[in-house]
């Protein structure tokens, strides 16, 4: 029925696995209580009345005391279990881990892969790739309001708060594509602020990483792609978006250098297909009302070549 790619009940990493364990323990205990208390209530209501004054009051006091005692012990046990799991989750580190800076914006995620060598870092948006089995240290920031970074299959959420840097470790044990979504109300398009986490085998990840470092695809002279690039650069696109290797170096909207490799556009609102992309450029306010991309008056003749160019940004 419901999908499994954005679910706390289908863990794909050690942290979400531990949290799911806590959940099943809590659920088991709760189920017992949910049977017990209404059961006691039913028994209290239906029982045959025989009253024998003082001694029955004393028995009741003992029963209440016992019930409170059991409750306290169970609660103490749950507290200990929760603390132990919390500690295990928090102590996870990978000295060999990736470093990724994720920044929340109204209403998309900027993703920067950071390395010690400057020419190996790169920026993308709304998509994170992770190699199976290798940890990633995520630094969370916000450029505007509070957002919350949440990929339930991998870990619980952590807020991105302006003026602060929060960190969280992610690790995935199995390949797969997992969806994450902003979990702190952040304004008009809070509902459409998703990102994908693609977990792949190490060599596939390395291939992707190498590709992302490269500047953008250079169109062949005279091709539709080149005409599309001219259209792109003559429209206001480059004031907000960057395409590395061109004169477009805007920093306030998603980096489009390798747009065509991404699964979705508009922070998960649409699948990345030619049709959706065209619709988005022409009338983004209808798809995601209030988003920061102004309506574009793209000349009818330019749109097809513009799309061809954007589709070539692999």
């Amino acid at each position, binding site marked *: 029925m419901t999908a499994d790619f954005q*679910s*706390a009940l289908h863990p794909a990493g050690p942290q979400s696995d531990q*949290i799911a364990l*806590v959940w099943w323990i809590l659920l088991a205990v709760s189920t017992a*209580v949910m049977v017990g208390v209404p059961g006691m209530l039913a028994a209290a209501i239906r029982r045959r009345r025989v009253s024998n004054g003082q001694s029955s009051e004393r028995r009741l006091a003992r029963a209440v005391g016992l019930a409170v005692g059991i409750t306290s012990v169970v*609660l103490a046990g749950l507290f200990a279990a929760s603390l132990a799991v*919390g500690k295990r989750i928090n102590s996870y580190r990978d000295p060999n881990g990736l470093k990724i800076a994720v920044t929340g914006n109204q209403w998309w995620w900027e993703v920067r892969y950071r390395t010690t060598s400057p020419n190996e870092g790169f920026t993308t948006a709304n998509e994170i790739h992770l190699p199976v089995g290798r940890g990633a240290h995520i630094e969370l920031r916000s450029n505007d309001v509070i957002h*919350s970074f949440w990929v339930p299959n991998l870990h619980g959420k952590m807020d991105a708060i302006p003026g602060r840097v929060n960190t969280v470790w992610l690790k995935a044990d199995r390949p797969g594509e997992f969806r994450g979504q902003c979990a702190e*109300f952040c304004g008009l398009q809070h509902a459409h602020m998703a990102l994908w986490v693609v977990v792949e085998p190490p060599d596939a990840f390395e291939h992707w990483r190498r590709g992302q470092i490269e500047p953008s695809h250079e169109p062949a002279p005279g091709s539709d792609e080149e005409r599309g690039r001219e259209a792109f650069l003559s429209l206001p696109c480059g004031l907000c978006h960057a395409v590395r290797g061109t004169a477009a170096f805007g920093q306030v909207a998603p980096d489009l250098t390798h747009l065509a490799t991404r699964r979705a556009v508009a922070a998960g609102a649409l699948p990345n297909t030619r049709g959706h992309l065209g619709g988005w450029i022409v009338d983004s306010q209808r798809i995601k009302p209030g988003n920061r991309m102004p309506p574009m008056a793209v000349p009818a003749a330019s749109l097809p070549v513009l799309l061809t160019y954007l589709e070539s940004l692999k």
Partner: protein
Amino acid sequence: MSPPGAALDSQADAAALRAAWSNRRGFYGWITEVDHKSIGKRYIVTAFVFLLLAGIEALLMRLQLSRPENGFLDPDLYNQVFTMHGTTMMFLFATPVMEGFGLYFVPLMVGTRNVAFPRLAAFSYWMYLFGGIFLYAGFVTNTGADAGWFAYVPLSGPEFSPGKRVDFWAQMITFTEISALSTAVDLIVTILRMRAPGMSLSRMPLYVWAMLVQSFMIVFAMPAVMLASSMLLADRTVGTHFFNPGETADPLLWQHLFWFFGHPEVYIIFIPALGMISSIIETFARRPVFGYPAMTLSLIATAFMGFGLWAHHMFTTGLPPATEAFFTAASIMIAIPSGVQVFCWLATLWSGDICWSTALRFVLAFFALFVAGGLTGVMIASVPFDTQAHDTFFIVAHFHYVLIGGAVFPLLGAVYYWFPKFTGRLLSERLGRLNFWVTFVGFNLTFFPMHYLGLKGMPRRVYTYTPEMGWGALNLLATCGAAILAMGGLLFLGNVFWSMTSRRTAGNNPWAAATLEWAADSPPEPYSFQELPAVSSREPMWSEAHDLAHVTGLAEDRRQTLVTSTVSARPQHRYSLPGPTLWPLLAALAVSSAFVGSVFRPIWVIYGAILTFFALLGWFWPKDYWE
């Protein structure tokens, strides 16, 4: 044996008292009213009107979410609607309705004739009414608050919420908090100093204990949010930087101030409901509630602990681990006093002699619904689990189980229970049974699926979702549940209107209950008790009903009542209360002018203060009723 002529004397007494305690009829009488029963009823009726509005908003949201990518509400309207729903429920329904019951029943239950400060009670009602009208005036003029009932900065700040929407919200907070604080102070003094002679603290009905504890919580919790809302308003209107991260302010300051109020707020709503449950169970189990000392201590413990768990709303903000452990421990521990009360009630029912009624049915539903909400509460006290559940539909399910199951079901039970006291008429039991079952089924259908939706990744406060998420079916189920729940609400309203016109009168004590409010007429005379009662046990209407001792020597030609000592309720002196007056309304208008005006022009804080000064001058002008 009454001496001859006693009946005539008694009639003369009643006539004199009625003359002293009545108000003139008509509109002027209505706006100058200071009787706690009238004000309490106004509070309750107004709160139910706001409940109706918030319910309609909930239905709009459920319609929008009933299928993926629905276009029924655009995101702008959806955000206003969910903000208005939460704000209305918390500030304009739940707290005020509990205050209204408190204002009505506390003086009756402690056996006095009015609250300690009748004009303050009137002022409190006007502030509440004006605050609510102000917020809705904004909503219908496209200035509805849209930053959530929690209004986190910087989203609610001047940069990301331009316009007046959040200003209306912030100022409404100040209105309702002033109103709640006024009532709290009023009830505290009434409870501590105006109890019937002999009603020592250890003989106070549990409902009165609950209102005392709740009132103290209001006194300590509400100032935090008033401070926060005023700081937010200053940021927005006069350019201060309390919450501006661009000026190195920390947005988390808002969250701490808000939740320092916001978590106790839950208990401010919930604790009066616990008192209602105790009253109802005692009556329909035909025995005193088991474990009176444990019950009162649990109420007090809940109140203290309630102030130590606010940060569990902030487990995903990156708190230090030691802080998280502390707040987890506190959040889990508060389940213990709740458990004590649940077990004591079970023991009461076990050893009692149960008489079925709709009121009891609503209270018994509490045991299933509140326990479910309490358990999910324990779950989300665990930091690891909360990082998954936080801000998802799991939380929406959790707090609706706690607040509707824990407070609204007992509240509806309380309406069924006390309706004869308000109106002199019983609500129909047959309609009541239908009302109960429809509400119960609708509630669970609406909110139970939300637990699962949250775990399957559905965040709160989203105006839509894409079809491939697979949340459509359960959302549709929840929407159908909401329609059934709404029918339950209509049945309740229908029952109230139908029964009000019924010819069958209820009598003073239709349930043969134990506490003093049942000694008064149904509905009570303006002076409540012809002779103030004196008690010598916890259940005066059971042990002393035929021979309730009473106080003599109070003047009948003015609004006189008795002040007793705080702990043992020994009579100390007579005390005359003020009668009908226009000043509370004028003072509320003056304060409102400052609040409303300052949203548009800050200078109105000064103008309003000057107007308020004159209003208070009139209010406190020496008058003759103090002898």
